[in-house]
């Protein structure tokens, strides 16, 4: 962590599909499995609804990490949505890597509706990773900084 | 990594075979024309690699009984190719110094006038570096 950012609190956006991962997050909640408050979940119908543009937008607006969660491959509510998502994210991540956004700032995880524990574990480890990477300065729109 | 594990991985690497694909149906042993001459049977090769007991494999008589006739390779329903495993084990032996199954000194007494060159060439390639 840099000296300037002693009180660094990351902004983390989590896209969760309605059928598996959002339910998994609910289960983490009802099981009282804590994870840092830095994570904010956005509900989408399916991981395949997550446009790579949304992730770029988040980084532009100052997010320090973006994680996408969907149903396990083969379990997609819409049969094939998460396969599309997986392919898109593979491409996006390699592009982000190319432009210098650290690999660890983005992640894809498959979390089923029954995996409350996995959801909280995933969020804990992801937030930890983002803390270690520090503030995202690479893609942020400078006009958005205060 | 233990030496045993290294050896097992080397066999997998040389052979290009994934022994975990085996479902232990025994079709290789059912197809093998050298079955009765072998101490370790074709279907057992994979277990020796999985159990990292390459030493037993390289010391087995089976190495020199396999004909590379590819009957097991052709018929294996799991694409395991036991013939390739045994060949990799044989390679591990003959690639070591002075570890050959056939030395040039032996040749003259084995020869007969009709023996085709192909036989000698093949045997040399199989039995020694």
């Amino acid at each position, binding site marked *: 962590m840099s000296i300037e950012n002693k009180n660094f609190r990351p902004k983390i956006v989590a896209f969760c599909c309605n059928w598996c991962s959002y339910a998994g997050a609910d289960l983490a909640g009802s099981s009282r499995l804590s994870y840092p408050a830095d994570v904010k979940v956005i509900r989408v119908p399916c991981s395949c609804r997550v446009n790579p543009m949304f992730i770029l937008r988040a980084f532009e607006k100052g997010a320090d990490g973006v994680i996408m969660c969907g149903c396990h491959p083969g379990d997609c509510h819409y049969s094939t949505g998460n396969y599309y998502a997986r392919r898109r994210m593979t491409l996006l991540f390699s592009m982000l890597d190319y432009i210098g956004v650290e690999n660890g700032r983005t992640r894809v995880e498959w979390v089923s509706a029954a995996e409350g524990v996995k959801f909280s574990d995933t969020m804990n480890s992801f937030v930890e990773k983002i803390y270690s990477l520090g503030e995202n300065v690479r893609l942020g729109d400078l006009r958005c900084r205060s | 990594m233990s030496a045993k594990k290294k050896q097992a991985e080397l066999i997998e690497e*040389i052979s290009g075979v994934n022994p975990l694909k085996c479902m232990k149906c025994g079709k290789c042993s059912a197809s093998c024309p050298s079955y009765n*001459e072998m101490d370790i049977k074709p279907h057992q090769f994979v277990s020796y690699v999985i159990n990292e007991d390459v030493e037993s494999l390289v010391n087995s008589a089976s190495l020199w009984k396999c004909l*590379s006739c590819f009957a097991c390779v*052709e018929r294996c329903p799991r694409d395991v190719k036991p013939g390739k495993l045994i060949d990799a084990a044989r390679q591990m032996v003959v690639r070591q110094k002075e570890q050959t199954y056939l030395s040039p000194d032996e040749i003259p007494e084995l020869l007969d006038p*009709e*023996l085709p060159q*192909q036989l000698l*060439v093949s045997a040399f390639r199989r039995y020694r570096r």
Partner: protein
Amino acid sequence: MKYSYYPGCTLRTKAKDLDDYARASAKALGFELEEIEDWQCCGGVYPLGTDEIATKLSCVRALNAAKEKEQELVTVCSACHHVMKRVNDDMKNVEDICTRANNYMELDEPYKGETNVLHFLEVLRDKVGFDELKKKVVNPLTGKKIGAYYGCLLLRPGKVLNFDNPENPKIMEDFIRAIGAEPVIYPYRNECCGGYISLKEKEMAENMCDKITESAEGFGADMLITACPLCMYNLNKSSRREIPVVYFTEILAEALGVKEVQA
């Protein structure tokens, strides 16, 4: 039609017949076998290890020579055919082997499996055509009951060699029919004769060859044909039965009426 021809070591020496009859028959059938210059022995056995490169280079040289002449490569010996096709498959489909072999070879243009490898029997089937062959037969071998002995090297692995159905081939049977004889189908025709094992383990080879000849005779074969000098040697030497074994090219030459010319 001109093909690059790879005779192999044994056809130069002990199996001269196989070679001579092949060339004579080719001439009679109207295609030419142009021997590759300075060919080297294929090694007789395809090296199975994924890390075997040097042992495959002699084949790559021959394959590349055919490529440079823009010819298909023809072999007669089963073993050469086997090794050549598999090395070619590696060059075509296994990137690692292809790269490393080309690094050794330092060719003007890397070889990537462009050459089509054909066994002489495949030329008869796919290029000449068995119907066409039938028309050219002058001495049909009528009444002869011939068992085809395929062995291993022509057929397996079926996916790479792509020669015929490895468990129930018919190319040699069709060939036998084309030259006017009657094929005898027997189940051991694609079982191993023992190969090089006969050098050190004679008894093993004997048992295996006996099974083959016994099965062939049991189904009524008068003679066996083969495309492999080693099979021929084993079946003649190791089998305790007397059934004659000849090269397929010999009866081909006989049927085409060019046998004596050559001999």
